[in-house]
């Protein structure tokens, strides 16, 4: 087919446009990425003029956020907060771009805190912390701070948590009775004894949904016991020189590898996702299921009084209880927000008894300190809140290892799937993850 001349002309025009477009392009990204500075003139008085705020969070947290907003608006009648929600993972992925937009939210959940502070997209909260006199436990404050080198855990406060998630082991009380487990395990030895009893009784000792990376949970449980909260948190906060590639860590991973080899986990873990694993646990197929308080409501509904919660067992008797526990929503104030005083008032509100009660009513653990909010006696939530109080008292809140960098979660999932199929040794497992960690941090 002969191409008409105009076609050639069209191609020429396209090429010309292409060249022009390329020539017109400068390097992508804004060069004004300087760190945002704290405002010097802040106020805790919101006046009486109407103020409109936007809050940006994951859709899974809509219920708790809307309850918080309602309680806040009751205290500040002139403030209206509009919630804006994306699916949880979409929110986490999109947050940097939403914060960079011309009309950013005034309060936003921040996942990759160090990255977003590095982008100059958040407002330092120091002036409001002083103005309101925030009294935040050190273990919690560490989750809100970033220093000048981009290392989390100390430095300037940029965020405040709406509340906390708490992780541990759920167990089926009927199955426990069947296998002869009279008291929940508090040490590793007791846990392994319970595993062995369950295996002998023909039930799955620990249900794992490793298609979605659930296998990393028991691994971190043992890493916590071996390395301690500080070392793990340093690693997650990207402290210089932090490593999990140590003989102690290897011993921790070996413990889990031994469980897998002994058949203490479901043999189709790699082909089971979190939802399916949870469903099979509620059906009485397993003794334990490792998860967090985000599953508490579902479990209570499905299993009624047949489910209980216990903190991850300590390595040695008398050891410090430790569990992964981090903010439900780590709220920050975007640098481009034009209602920062009102947004800060909302963050201050999160520490009040009213807000703490809202969090507990929604199945999460409360932010800050104070009297334990009320729970229904004998409920699963009551035992979870009691466990959380113990954990905060022992300063045992540990960050999730999957949060160390924005890309490390995938690596943990991949390596844990290899571990569950015995395709990597514990030493290789840790070396691979440490290598990816250093590569992603550009070390």
């Amino acid at each position, binding site marked *: 087919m002969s191409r008409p001349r105009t076609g050639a002309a069209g191609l020429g025009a396209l090429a010309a446009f292409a060249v022009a477009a390329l020539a017109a*392009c400068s390097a992508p*990204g*804004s060069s004004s990425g300087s760190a945002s500075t704290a405002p010097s003139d802040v106020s805790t008085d919101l006046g009486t003029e109407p103020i409109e705020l936007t809050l940006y969070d994951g859709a899974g947290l809509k219920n708790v956020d809307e309850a918080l907003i309602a309680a806040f608006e009751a205290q500040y009648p002139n403030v209206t907060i509009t919630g804006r929600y994306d699916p949880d993972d979409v929110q986490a992925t999109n947050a940097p771009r939403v914060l960079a937009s011309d009309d950013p939210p005034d309060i936003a959940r921040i996942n990759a805190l160090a990255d977003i502070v590095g982008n100059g997209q958040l407002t330092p909260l120091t002036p409001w912390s002083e103005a309101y006199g925030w009294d935040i436990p050190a273990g919690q404050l560490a989750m809100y701070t970033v220093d000048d080198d981009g290392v989390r855990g100390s430095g300037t406060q940029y965020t405040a948590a709406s509340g906390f998630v708490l992780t541990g082991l759920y167990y089926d009380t009927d199955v426990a009775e069947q296998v002869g487990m009279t008291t929940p395990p508090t040490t590793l030895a007791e846990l392994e004894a319970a595993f062995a009893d369950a295996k002998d009784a023909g039930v799955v000792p620990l249900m794992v949904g490793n298609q979605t990376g659930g296998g990393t949970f028991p691994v971190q449980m043992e890493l916590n016991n071996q390395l301690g909260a500080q070392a793990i948190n340093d690693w997650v906060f990207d402290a210089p020189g932090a490593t999990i590639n140590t003989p102690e860590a290897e011993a921790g991973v070996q413990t889990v590898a031994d469980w897998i080899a002994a058949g203490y986990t479901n043999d189709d873990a790699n082909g089971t996702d979190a939802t*399916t694993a949870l469903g099979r646990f509620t059906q009485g197929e397993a003794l334990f299921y490792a998860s967090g308080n985000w599953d508490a409501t579902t479990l209570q509904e499905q299993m009624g009084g047949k489910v209980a919660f216990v903190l991850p067992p300590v390595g040695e008797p008398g050891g410090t209880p430790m569990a992964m526990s981090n903010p439900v929503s780590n709220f920050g104030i975007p640098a481009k927000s034009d209602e920062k005083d009102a947004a800060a008032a909302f963050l201050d509100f999160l520490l009040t008894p009213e807000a703490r009660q809202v969090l507990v009513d929604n199945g999460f653990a409360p932010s800050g300190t104070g009297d334990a909010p009320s729970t229904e006696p004998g409920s699963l939530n009551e035992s979870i809140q009691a466990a959380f109080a113990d954990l905060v008292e022992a300063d045992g809140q540990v960050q999730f290892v999957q949060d160390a960098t924005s890309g490390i979660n995938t690596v943990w999932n991949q390596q844990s799937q290899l571990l569950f199929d015995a395709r990597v040794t514990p030493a290789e497992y840790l070396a691979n993850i440490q290598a990816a960690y250093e590569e992603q941090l550009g070390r």
Partner: protein
Amino acid sequence: MSTLDSTFAGEAETALAGSAPSARARRGRGWRSRGARPTSWTGWLFVLPALIMYLVFVIRPMIATIQYSFYDWNGITAATPVGLANYTRVLTDPLLLASVGHSFFLMIFYTILPVIGGLVVAALIQEIKMRGLGTVARTTLFIPQIIPGAAAAIAWVWMFSSNGAVNQLLSAVGLESLTRAWLGDFTWALPSVGVIGWWLGLGFCTILLMAGIGKIDVSIYEAARLDGAGFVRTFRSVTLPGLRQEVGVCVTVTMIAALASFDVVFMSTQGGPGTSTMVPGVLIYELGFTRSQVGLASALGVVLTALILAVILPIQRFFRED
């Protein structure tokens, strides 16, 4: 299915775009013969709205992608030029190379099996149509085509799970020893993902090939029948030679679907277990949006595009030849 759909739509668009200038040119020649001045800009005026959309939403992002691929950029702050470093990484990183290898393996399921299966099924339906069951068979086969790939993947995840339909079926026929969590098995996950792609692609190929068969002169079939040709002989001597171009389109579209696969893998395995089902499409998303390595993701995208062109162009030529 969105991959197949969008590629198919792209084909159609190209076809339309191809016909527009030639029609205009004919008209232009007509004016010239009547002695009127050629006004080449009036035609462009009609094309302008579409052209602007095309330039802004297709050409500009393509150019931007090429540009980004030479930078180390997190998507927000100022980018650092890194020359060809991203390309060096793409061409040397074992994980990135393995993902391309997985795509080529998926071609067995996305291209070879659907085209062969489509040919057989289309020829069979051609037979059945004469007995009046064609519509039912056609509809059944085309149903996967109207289900989004992401939704199909979710349904297949259930069927491939430990107590899903696939294992139930195997147990029912006494093959209990073969049952496994298919998508969680390092050996079987990639073929299992392939089966989903095969299921999605078969209907598309069948319908396209049936349309092709419809174009073949019925009298040739009648002549073959009078000469005593059976199903196999008719298929080989009449149907297959008459479908050369349709097979070409099937192969092209499904190969692109295999190389650019994203939705099925993302929804069923996310590249796991380990990295055994990782494909470039999922990696690009992962690098660009989760890890904020926009430059590296762009470089992988450019390499993937070049690879698709390198694979598709010779095939196009082969099937266009008379």
